[in-house]
């Protein structure tokens, strides 16, 4: 039995779709809208910014070592202590940070959705044990374990993706479990069970697809967390390695030179904070739009 037929009938009717309703509500949230446009600008800048500049990420301009930002010499954000163009590096750093944000978030979604759906769907003792584990993990200083992982397995970028994703699924698991608890009471789940669908099929076909809305919210709220974790690691020198860079690594470099050349700190710090700020606002706005009961 496929749920597709039903859903097309539902969405073609005169009834407003949930997505549209959410969008209409979100449009009234000015902070979220501004954040969305800002993020778009940062993404576009991060993607094409480096191409527009005549410097590349590890080009050294020997005539301009640690120079302040100026338009005349082409270094919009100035250069770092090695004479590398800070505009290009900030853009590349934003790109890496965004990439890690998205990929690690997907990893955490994959774990969190399944974990939460299974716990919520089976309920009872399974649920109690699984959620107790989440409770325990919640209060762990998880950064410490990521740091351990980074120390052992070298500072491989893919490992960073996975390690960060693997620690960030707790929120999602909790939310998904709560949703699943109410979803499994729905008529269509019962119907599927009567048709003889297995538990796993029900989870896959009927529970997880219906978690979409809440998952979107948590994607936007998890991305900034992940970016934060990555920059934290890079700041401590345990994340992205040279010549690649991320916003955290740039902030770290900048913090060392800030006394003499504050631009090295200010531009990456600005971009990092801007990204985190915007994602948080969008996530908040989306949550309010999807679930007006929680908002106020």
């Amino acid at each position, binding site marked *: 039995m496929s749920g597709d037929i039903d859903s097309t009938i539902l969405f073609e009717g005169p009834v407003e779709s949930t997505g549209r309703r959410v969008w209409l509500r979100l449009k009234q949230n000015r*902070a979220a809208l501004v954040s969305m446009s800002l993020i778009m600008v940062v993404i576009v800048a991060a993607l094409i910014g480096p191409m527009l500049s005549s410097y590349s990420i590890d080009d050294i301009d020997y005539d301009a070592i640690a120079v302040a930002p100026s338009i005349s010499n082409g270094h919009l954000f100035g250069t770092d202590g090695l004479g590398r163009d800070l505009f290009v590096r900030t853009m590349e750093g934003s790109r890496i940070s965004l990439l890690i944000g998205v990929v690690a978030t997907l990893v955490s979604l994959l774990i969190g959705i399944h974990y939460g759906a299974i716990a919520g769907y089976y309920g009872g003792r399974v649920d*109690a044990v699984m*959620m*107790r584990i989440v409770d*325990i993990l*919640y*209060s*762990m*200083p*998880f*950064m*410490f*374990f990521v*740091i*351990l*992982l*980074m*120390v*052992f*397995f*070298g500072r491989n970028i893919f490992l960073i993706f996975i390690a960060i994703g693997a620690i960030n699924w707790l929120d999602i698991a909790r939310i998904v479990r709560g949703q699943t608890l109410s979803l499994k009471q729905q008529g269509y789940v019962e119907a599927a069970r009567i048709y003889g669908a297995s538990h796993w099929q029900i989870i896959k076909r009927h529970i997880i697809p219906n978690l979409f809305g809440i998952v979107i919210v948590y994607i936007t709220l998890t991305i*900034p967390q992940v970016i*934060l974790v990555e*920059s*934290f690691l890079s*700041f*401590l*020198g*345990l994340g992205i390695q040279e010549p690649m860079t991320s916003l*955290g690594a740039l*902030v*770290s470099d*900048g*913090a060392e030179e*800030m*006394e003499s050349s*504050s631009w090295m*700190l200010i531009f990456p*710090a600005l971009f*990092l*904070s801007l990204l*985190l*700020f915007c994602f*948080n*606002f969008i996530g*908040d706005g989306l949550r309010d739009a999807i679930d007006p009961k*929680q908002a*106020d």
Partner: protein
Amino acid sequence: MVTYFFRRLLGAIPTIFLIILISFFLIRLAPGGPFDFDRTLAPEIQANLNAQYHLDKPVYVQFGYYFLDIVQGDFGPSFQYKNYTVTELIVQGFPVSLQLGLSAMLLALLIGVAAGMFAAYKQNTRLDHLVMTLSMTGISIPNFVVAPLLILIFAIGVSLLPAGGWNNGAIQNQILPIITLALPLIAYIARISRSSMIEVLRMPYIRTAYSKGLPSFYIVTRHALKPTLLPVISYLGPAIAGLITGSVVVEQIYGIPGLGRYFIQGALNRDYTLVMGVVVFYGILIIALNLIVDLLYGWLDPQIRLHGRSNVR
């Protein structure tokens, strides 16, 4: 209540064991041993070193030694700080971290709860939006950005406060680290107590209190405060974990000789025993603190004493 306490205490033991196990095996998996020097040692010396630290035994025997030692409060000698045991380093570093963490927590609770309740009381006014925007800023700007900016402003700009160092815990050395640690906590606590307070203010008994003609200040402090605090208290567990993580960065930036700093040094130097010791120590500490938080929660909310915590979530 007593049964509840012992049940939670019993539940904590396997968790602690698990933490020890995980950190032990994670470190064993690491490529590169502590005695891989640039200059190769004579095989006899290498063997002696390995024997000294039980590295020549099978892994499970190593774990057995390690576990027995930990139960006795002995985390072994540090691999890098040759004249210190890990326990000595923890005893040295932890009080410093604790002092900063406690101050930051108190500061965050005071300001966060007050700001959140104020915003809820003035819900949907300009002041409410201001508080919420500020708290979003606090959540969004990471502490390793806040710290250099604070130094830039207060130490380099107006040279009011020292840029770093501990100076045996002089007040002026503590101000910036404490603020840095507390800011994100203030922001989270403000948001939590705001939404909690909004819910509480809708309760019938609050309406009753208003209809009796009680002054708002009295209602807020006497009727609304305690239930508003419940979600804040359940946030204390993650908050403690956040503080500990934050202390790593803060101690690194301000050059404070706390435990977080030893941890990062240990991680960078592959100091197995130090890193494991710190992780296990903090793990046990966090479990103990969470137990206290749970008891506090039970004391504030009588429902839990009867049904256990899961019913409320």
